[in-house]
């Protein structure tokens, strides 16, 4: 038993290095995708203190809009542009209808409002596009679809999907773009000011409403990118929404307010759960992936309650 837990997995890793590499790669890709979802959460939480539960459904919604438009004869790139516009409208609508009247409410109320938004978007999305899953228009968007296999040793084989590589590249570009946006532009600085202190930001003439709409829009763009990538891996359907729960342990690992935290957290969870599932999962019947991420995050939290990159929580009486 002890051998199975402490030694055998490592022996396996050594015996089949190609497989181990493949596991690491899958973990990396999964981690990137979790990180992308988490990124959407972080953007909104940073600027408005709202834990946006609707990020998962926004991913589905963005993907569905894109594919749905394309199915109705809109060319792929135009559909992409229209989807971006739709996310903009959604962001404005959310800010105007949901966020603005709820300003200054406790966290839990804002959380509930986003869950309400989730319900609304599920109904609305199915109402408009129907409940059947759609295939992502990967090729039409000019994304690669093939795969490359690397021979490795005697019968070793590591298969890299081009779409996964693209996902990684897009994620990196996206984080870089966000970084530049936050640090170098006027709006970006305003965003950081709002994140630091709402009232101080207001007093120097930053419009909270405008900033929030922008942040929701940015989160919408991240959701669109995530939707395309997840959609290309499986399908665009409402079942995808459940995957978004995986972003929550990523968030608590990385901290609610840190963009690098979301990336690092995503990778830790991605690697952790794949390695855990493949090398240790068999001992308890498999399927531990569904909760392993949470347990990792939970144990981690016991030692560092504010997450990896989170700001230290200081409580005053």
């Amino acid at each position: 038993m002890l051998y199975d837990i402490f030694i055998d997995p490592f022996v396996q890793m050594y015996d089949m290095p190609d497989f181990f590499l493949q596991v690491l790669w899958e973990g990396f890709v999964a981690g990137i995708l979790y990180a992308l979802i988490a990124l959407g959460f972080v953007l909104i939480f940073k600027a408005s203190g709202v834990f946006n539960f609707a990020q998962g459904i926004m991913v589905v919604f963005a993907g569905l809009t894109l594919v749905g438009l394309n199915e109705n004869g809109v060319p792929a790139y135009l559909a992409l542009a229209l989807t971006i516009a739709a996310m903009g409208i959604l962001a404005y609508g959310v800010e105007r209808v949901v966020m603005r009247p709820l300003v200054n409410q406790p966290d839990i109320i804002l959380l509930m409002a986003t869950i309400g938004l989730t319900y609304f978007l599920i109904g609305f999305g199915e109402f408009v596009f129907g409940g059947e899953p759609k295939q992502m228009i990967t090729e039409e968007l000019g994304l690669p679809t093939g795969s490359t296999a690397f021979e490795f040793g005697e019968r070793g084989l590591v298969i890299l999907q081009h779409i996964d590589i693209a996902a990684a590249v897009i994620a990196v570009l996206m984080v870089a773009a966000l970084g530049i946006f936050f640090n170098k532009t006027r709006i970006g600085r305003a965003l950081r000011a709002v994140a630091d202190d709402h009232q101080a930001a207001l007093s120097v003439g930053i419009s909270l409403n405008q900033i929030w709409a922008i942040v929701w829009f940015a989160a919408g763009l991240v959701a669109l990118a995530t939707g395309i990538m997840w959609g290309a891996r499986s399908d665009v359907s409402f079942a995808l929404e459940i995957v978004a729960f995986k972003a929550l342990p990523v968030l608590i690992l990385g901290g609610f307010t840190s963009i690098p935290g979301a990336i690092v957290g995503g990778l830790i969870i991605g690697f952790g759960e794949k390695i855990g599932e493949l090398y240790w999962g068999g001992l308890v019947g498999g399927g531990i992936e569904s909760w392993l991420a949470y347990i990792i995050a939970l144990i981690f939290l016991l030692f560092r309650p504010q997450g990896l990159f989170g700001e230290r929580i200081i409580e005053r009486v």
Partner: protein
Amino acid sequence: MFYREAGQFKTSYKADQALMPILQDRVGLLVILAVAFVVIPVFANDFFLTSIMIPFLVFSLAAIGLNVLTGFCGQLSLGTGAFMGVGAYAAYKLTSIFPDANVILMVLLSGVFSAAIGAVFGLPSLRIKGLYLAVTTLAAQFFLEWCFIRIPWLYNYNASGAIEIPHREAFGVVVSGAEATPIVRYFIVLGITALIAYLMANVLRGRIGRSWMMIRDMDIAAELMGIRPLQTKLMAFAVSSYICGVAGAMMVFFWLNAAEPSSYSISLSFQILFMVILGGLGSLSGAFMGAAFIWILPVFLKFIPGTIGINVAAETVEHITFMVVGALIIFFLIVEPHGFARLWQIAKQKLRVWPFPY
């Protein structure tokens, strides 16, 4: 005018500290109980009992359970569904181990198991707070769900992986299984819910309830005043999980008759959380109002178009239900973030001064 307490004098401390010091409240409660125990059984049909009243009561009880934790002790939990599941599986195991025991007793006993598990998962609450805690309770949710699937002992090695409620009798009446009549089930569920609600109403205004509220309002201050945070929080987790566990057991024994692990999934947790928030955090009557809103509204939306003759496709109704429920949740949060309980208080105030509001 309608709700005046003027002229109701208390002549003893006992009367002053009664659960319902105001006459109108007592009358109102009696009316509600009379409706619940007499009018509904007399006039309701099977559909109303099994699809509206029983689920409503089960959910109300679960909402009371979550309210103890979230509303009174301030610990946000997303693991309610799993704790209800623990109750259900525990009750199922208990009845299969002791086939001759009274099912109602077993259901009440099953809560003890979920209380224990709830307390274990409540341990991190000492260090982790707020939304972070909410996410860690998700660990409980997913881990327990996995257990319901992967530990075949829990469902007696049924090939289907589901628990099926056996036929049981108590007091000479069939109380569970397919033959149990809706009326019998309704009375059991109503009885248990009313009993626990009554007990909780008393616990919450006593020493224990007040210590929970101190922790909720400011835990450091409470600690300084001699409240032990660990015991108090764990007790809140245990009591809350006990109530949720009983509700979960009732859900499968007296309502669904069979349950798969997916019956106790994360969406159930959210459903209960909705009820608590919309009903009003920290209010027992709010739990009932929230449950009524979240459960009964979709049922009505689903069946009303058909009964009034509008022919809408089943899936369109479902989509619209989602949209309406979502929009109403946002609407109520905007209009009254403190829930129906607060609306009711405002209404009472209006009634008190009517017709001369100034």
